[in-house]
Every structure is written in structure tokens, then in C-alpha cells.
């Protein structure tokens, strides 16, 4: 299989075998027509980073507006559009594709010792679908905007003005990009592992991405169907969700969360996957409980399909349904706890270095701890009834989505940056930025737990004066967070202007992506890598196999 799937691009340039992938072909056209997974990964990276910037600007606007209880910088209508776009961009255009489509696209085949993903052309096609979806979404923003919230709840979404139809169509299109990337990764992991690499010899990153890909393939079609039904109701007046047309608005919520809850794990599993790489590398230590972590990923993926109703305890669903969903939800706590303790204990008797990627991984352990523990509050039905749709929920999912996934993404970005671009960034600047992001993030979202438990509902433009102090603390936190990101952008871009200086394996890692040059050559490895041991065999000298 590995022999058959060589891209035409590679086989057509036999004389360029030793050129790194960044210099193998010049000009925009060589990028836009590439089927090299590394180049596609980089194109995804720039696209999602732009979207992260855009979503971040909207986030700063939200926080600034909430500085005072009444109008601060914008009208209520604008505010409603801004928080909708913040959510929709961050979820559909940034977080979901962030780790899988950008980072995993680059490193997954390298980790497996493969030349490319299983379907390189399909990979490029996914990128184009993503770009088309992104363009449609941007069109929707500038032609009327959307004020439904990223959840598109009916019947508000079928009756409000604005470009709701266009925005849902954008999300519909983006879903296909996600599905095709998932299919590609499943096939790649099944078929393109290097000779000698069994399932349990794969780096845990691949397990995490595999579990993610399964959810992408199985859950995303449900979102597509739901959005199609929404479009039909909005455009042709076919009654599915709107009670005025004989529909049921709660049905939409069931459909929506049937996708969007698994989507939460599409977002967190890849983050966990990155942590499973960074911690052993910077501890120079065998990962503790390899199989437990691998199976926990798959367990979380499976359980994720049967807990959607915990978003709907107040929706009027039956009490029996709430009981069952609450019960199953608590099982997610177990694999999460297993993973957390496995990561921590991996450092035991290790040799721990505090480079920027590791600082992000350590931040992840603390922030995911808070995100996970506050999830227990929301799983308990009686407490959730009070906290549902308040800032407590906002704080909780930001600890999971941003405090965990985005922090892990940043860790991964700093970890693989030398591999991707062949350049080291300023380590001291990176540490400062990481500290600012960590402090700013907590200052922004810790106060929101208290806002929520005191009863402050989410998606509020005006709020009661008694909540002002905590809102202001949160807004000041967002400025610290923004400063951290500005510094990060500064030193990362600065590193790109330098000459290439990154060694092949700056972190002394044992996984395969570090066994080739930085940046890698177009076809990844000069010869098919032989796998003689596990990816975390830090107990024996580098290069020595288990049987040597």
C-alpha cells in the first residue's frame, strides 16, 4: 500500500529528493497544487491561525462591551452578532480543524514513517472545501451577519433576519472538509504504518487522532442533515422545528447536540494526544500506562455519542432521559482521570526540562483539571438546573476548549515549529508569552465561574450592576491574554525571518518525525524507517532497537 500511494508530485521530481519540502517547488502555484501532506498542513495552519485571530478580535470586543453594565462600545444587535461570530468561528473554523487538519496533517504520516497520507489528493480537496466554507462564512458575516448564537437554536434561527442561511450553509460545507480529513487519517493509520510498527508501537498522538477521526466520520453527517433541515425550513417553510409550522424546536436540539457533543471530543481528544507526546519527550521517560491512555481515547470517543442530552436538562426532555444522560455523562470522568494521572506520573523518575512546549503541557494539566472538575458540577442534574445557560457553563467550556485544547495546540505548535519551519524561536520570549497566556486565561475565566453560580445568564448584553466587578476582572484578564498572544505572534514571525537553524531532533524525542531532517524532505524519509522499539523507549540509548 505504501508503495502504491506515492504522490505524482514526488515521483515526478526524483532529482529533488534531498530538497526540503519548503523549497521543493517555488511560488504560489506550487503550494496551491501540492499534494504533500506537510504543505497542506502548513496551508491549513495559516488559514486556522487567521481564523483564530478573527475569533480572538471578536472575543476582545465582547469583553470590552461587558466592561460596563449598559452600552460600552456597541449596540445590542451588534453584540449579539459578535458573540455569535466568535463562537461559530472558534468552533467550526478554528478548533475543530486546528489540531487534526493543521498539526496532525503535518506530523501524523511522519510519526507513522509514511511518505504521505493515504489519499493525498483528497487531502488537498479537503483544504479547498475548508477554504470555500470559510469564504462563505465570511460572506455571511459581511452581508448582514448572524445573531443566533453558534448553536442556531430554532425557532429563533428560522425567524430572525440576517445571513443565517448562508452561515449554516458554510458550516454544512466545512463539515465535509472535516469528514474527508477523518476518512483520510483512518485509512492512513490502518494502512501506512512503517514496517514493524504495530498498533501499540504507534505514538499516542496517533491513537488520539484515530479516535478523533472516527467521531469526525460518524458524527459530522448528522450535523449536515440537521443544517440541511434547518435550511429547508428557513428557505422553503417546510415545518420541521418551528411549532407554527407543526414542527418541534426541541428536536433541533437533539439533532444539534447529537453532533455537537461528540464534536466537543473532536476538539479535546487531539489536545490530549499532543500532551501524550510532549510530556514523555520533555521528561525523557516512558509514558506511564500506554494502553490505558490509548483505550481511554477510544472509550471517550464511544461514550461521547450517548451523552448529548446533558446539554438539555432544562429543555423539557423527560426526567427519565435526564437521569440516563446524567448517569452516562459521569462515566466520561473516569477515562479523563486515568489520563490525567498517567501524564503526571510519567514525570516520576524522569529528566524534566521546562522548554516552552512543556510549560504548555504543565499548564494543560492544571487547566484541564479545572475544566474536568467543573464538568462534574454540570453533570449533577440538580446543580446543572441552576447553572445551565449561566456564565458557569461559559467558564467551564472555555477551560476545556481554550484552557485545554488551545493550550495543547499552542504546546504542539511550539513543539513541532522547528520541524515544520526548520527554525528555533526565542525560548525566553516563548516562556514569557506562555506565562502571560496562563495568567490572562485564568484571570478571564475564573471570575466567570462565580458570575455563573451567582446567577448571571450568558449571552447578556446588559447586566445587573452587582455583577460589574467580576465582569471587569474578566475583561482585564482578556487584555493580559491578548498581550501574551501578541508577543507569541511577534517571536514566531521573527523566527521565520532567520536562517534555518533547527537541528533534526532538538528535543531528543524518540518518535519518528524527529528522525528526519528539520524541515523534512518532500518524501519525508530517505529510506523506509525501521521500527525496532516503542516511541517512548527512553530507557535505552537513542537508535538502539529493542532487539539490538
Amino acid at each position: 500500500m505504501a508503495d502504491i500511494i506515492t504522490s505524482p508530485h514526488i515521483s515526478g521530481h526524483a532529482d529533488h529528493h534531498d530538497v526540503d519540502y519548503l523549497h521543493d517547488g517555488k511560488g504560489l502555484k506550487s503550494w496551491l497544487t501540492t499534494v504533500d501532506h506537510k504543505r497542506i498542513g502548513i496551508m491549513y495552519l495559516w488559514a486556522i491561525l487567521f481564523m483564530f485571530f478573527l475569533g480572538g478580535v471578536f472575543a476582545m470586543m465582547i469583553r470590552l462591551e461587558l466592561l460596563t453594565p449598559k452600552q460600552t462600545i456597541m449596540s445590542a444587535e451588534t453584540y449579539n452578532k459578535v458573540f455569535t461570530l466568535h463562537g461559530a468561528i472558534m468552533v467550526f473554523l478554528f478548533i475543530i480543524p486546528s489540531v487534526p487538519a493543521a498539526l496532525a496533517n503535518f506530523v501524523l504520516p511522519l510519526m507513522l514513517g509514511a511518505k504521505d497520507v493515504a489519499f493525498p489528493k483528497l487531502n488537498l480537496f479537503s483544504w479547498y472545501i475548508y477554504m470555500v466554507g470559510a469564504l462563505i462564512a465570511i460572506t455571511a458575516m459581511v452581508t448582514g451577519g448572524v445573531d443566533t448564537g453558534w448553536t442556531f437554536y430554532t425557532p429563533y434561527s428560522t425567524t430572525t433576519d440576517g445571513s443565517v442561511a448562508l452561515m449554516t450553509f458554510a458550516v454544512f460545507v466545512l463539515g465535509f472538509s472535516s469528514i474527508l480529513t477523518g476518512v483520510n487519517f483512518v485509512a492512513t493509520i490502518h494502512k501506512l504504518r512503517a514496517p514493524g510498527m504495530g498498533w501499540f508501537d504507534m505514538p499516542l498522538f496517533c491513537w488520539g487522532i484515530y479516535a478523533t477521526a472516527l467521531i469526525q466520520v460518524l458524527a459530522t453527517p448528522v450535523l449536515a442533515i440537521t443544517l440541511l433541515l434547518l435550511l429547508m425550513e428557513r428557505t422553503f417553510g417546510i415545518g420541521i422545528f418551528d411549532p407554527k409550522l407543526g414542527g418541534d424546536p426541541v428536536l433541533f436540539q437533539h439533532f444539534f447536540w447529537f453532533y455537537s457533543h461528540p464534536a466537543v471530543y473532536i476538539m479535546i481528544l487531539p489536545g490530549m494526544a499532543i500532551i501524550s507526546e510532549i510530556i514523555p519527550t520533555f521528561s525523557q521517560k516512558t509514558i506511564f500506562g500506554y494502553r490505558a491512555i490509548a483505550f481511554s481515547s477510544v472509550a471517550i470517543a464511544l461514550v461521547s455519542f450517548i451523552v448529548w442530552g446533558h446539554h438539555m436538562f432544562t429543555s423539557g426532555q423527560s426526567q427519565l432521559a435526564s437521569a440516563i444522560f446524567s448517569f452516562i455523562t459521569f462515566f466520561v470522568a473516569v477515562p479523563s482521570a486515568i489520563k490525567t494521572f498517567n501524564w503526571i506520573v510519567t514525570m516520576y523518575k524522569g529528566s524534566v526540562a521546562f522548554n516552552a512546549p512543556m510549560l504548555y503541557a504543565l499548564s494543560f494539566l492544571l487547566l484541564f483539571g479545572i475544566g474536568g472538575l467543573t464538568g462534574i458540577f454540570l453533570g449533577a442534574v440538580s446543580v446543572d438546573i441552576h447553572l445551565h445557560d449561566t456564565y458557569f457553563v461559559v467558564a467551564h467550556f472555555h477551560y476545556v476548549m481554550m484552557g485545554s485544547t488551545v493550550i495543547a495546540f499552542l504546546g504542539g505548535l511550539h513543539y513541532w515549529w522547528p520541524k515544520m519551519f526548520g527554525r528555533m524561536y526565542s525560548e525566553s520570549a516563548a516562556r514569557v508569552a506562555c506565562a502571560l497566556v496562563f495568567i490572562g486565561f485564568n484571570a478571564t475565566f475564573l471570575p466567570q465561574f462565580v458570575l455563573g453560580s451567582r446567577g448571571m445568564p450568558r449571552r447578556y448584553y446588559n447586566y445587573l450592576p452587582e455583577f460589574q466587578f467580576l465582569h471587569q476582572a474578566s475583561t482585564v484578564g482578556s487584555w493580559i491574554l491578548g498581550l501574551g498572544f501578541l508577543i507569541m505572534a511577534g517571536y514566531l514571525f521573527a523566527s521565520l525571518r532567520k536562517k534555518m537553524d533547527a537541528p533534526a531532533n532538538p528535543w531528543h524525542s524518540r518518535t519518528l518525525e524527529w528522525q528526519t531532517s528539520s524541515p523534512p524532505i518532500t518524501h519525508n524519509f530517505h529510506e523506509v524507517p525501521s521500527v525496532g522499539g516503542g516511541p517512548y523507549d527512553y530507557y535505552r540509548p537513542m537508535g538502539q532497537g529493542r532487539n539490538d
Partner: protein
Amino acid sequence: MDSIRHWMLGPQGSAYANDVDVLYMFLVWLSVFFFALIVFLTVYLAWKYRRRKEGVLTPNIAHNLTLELLWSIVPLIIVMGIFFWGFNDYVRASVAPNDAIEIHVTGKKWLWAFEYADGTRTIGNLHVPVNRPVKLILTSEDVLHDFYIPSMRQKTDVIPGRFVDLTFTPTVPGRHQVFCAEYCGKSHSDMMANLFVDSPEVYEKWLLEGDPELQTMAPVEVGKLVYENKGCNSCHSIDGSKNTGPSFKGLYGRLEKFTDGSTVTVDDNYIAESINNPQARIVAGYEPVMPTFQGLLRIPEMRGIIAYIKELK
């Protein structure tokens, strides 16, 4: 301890609120314990085994069954306990006793309307007697809303085309805040209501006579209250700025032009018509979105709002 609880959760309005808070605070301390454990282990191990020399080999510690069983089974037992605790409270609070007072609630953009068994109808102010179970039966006229009483630790989505109910037994007299907690558009954050928990005598008197202030206040003052409490302020400004509906500032005596081209000079009768039958004539440049308030204003209240508009020059 109690001050921490109060700072985190705000005032309690019922015995059930205390039950929720006990579980909440249990979870807070449980989380503090586990978070402290995570922080301690992370910081301790990372620092104790910090890199002192490059290129060392480390022992191959791949797993430890006892430890792994410990951190699988202990969390499982704890969360199962929490499940039963939370669910048990929830079920108890969901069932209304037979002697509960039933009050119908309608949510619409962007106000709450209440209807009592004796025909009393109000907007924005819900009165209930203390220590009697209350069963609200709620529905929506347009989109999803959510009736949320933080001090009772209770909320429910309010769904068009469906009746849902919400039960609570208030034990603390006085005013309690009500929010709309399901996003419903422009004035979502202004869609609030007051829950007044009265002594039985005050409650009975209120049912008969309406808000006591109405008896003694000047009409303009009554009008101002009506403006704030009945939801007028969601759509009509008093400073001349354009909102969903025309501003009240300078409205009285103005020549209004309608969508059908006709005009009227705003007087008492036009204001009354606009309140009772808002769809009759639509001012040019506005959408026909105002709900009717027919039967929702007592005569002093109607007089009050007219006087109030007259005052806003």
C-alpha cells in the same frame, strides 16, 4: 464557610435552594481537594525530577496495576455517588404537591406575562404567598425563552407550542430576581421579571386590588412604573433614540404617519388603541411586532402611562 457559600451562590429563596447549595459546596471542596492534588503532584514531580544533566537514560516504568485501578475505581465510586445525589434532589424538586398554586406564565419577546386562577393578569411582576408551593405552567408565544429564578435554583426552558412546568416553595419574603436564560434576540438581557414573595395577607389583598402603590401614587409615577415593569422599555426609549418601536419622548401631540399613508395626532385615545390593539395602525418605518396588552393594564395604570408619555417632552 457560610460566607463563602453566600459569595458564590447568592441569596437562597427556598429550602430546596439550600439542598442544591449543599451539593454545590460539596463539589467545590471535592474539586479543591483534587485540584490541589493535581497541582501538588505536577509541581512536585516536575521539580524533583527536573533535568540536571543532558542525555541520561531513565527507568522504564510502563505501568502499575494497583495505582491504575486506584485512580479508575475511586473516581468512579465518587461520581456515581454524585449522580444519585444530584438526581434525587432534581426529582424531588420536579414534582409539584397537590396543593400548589397554579400560575400561567407566557414568555414573549421581551416580557413575562402572568395569569392567575382568578383572572388577575400582570406583566413583569409575579406575586406569590410565602411557604406555599407554586407551580408555574409556562409557554412561549414566539421563540424559546427560559424562566430562571436564581434564588430558587430553578429554571426551565419555555417552549412555543408546549406547556412545561416549574415548581418551587418560596420561604424568604421579599423581591427575587427573574431572568430569561435562553437567548431570544435583541432585548434578551432586559427580559427580566420580579418575583415578590408576600405574606398571605398581602398576597390576598394584592390579588384583589393590584399593586398597592397604584392607590397613592401620582399618575406620572404610576406611568413610570408601568413603563419599567411591563416591558415598554424593551422597545420604546424615553430619550428620543430609535428602537424597535417609536420613542416616547415628544410623542404626545406629535403627528404620526402610518404605513398605509394615514396620519394621526397622538392623543389619549391613540395611545390606548396602540396598547390594546397595536396592530391596528403601524407607524411608518417600524415592524408590526408589538403584542397586545388588552386586559393587562388596570385603569389607573392606563391613565398613568398616558400621563407619563405626556410628560416626556
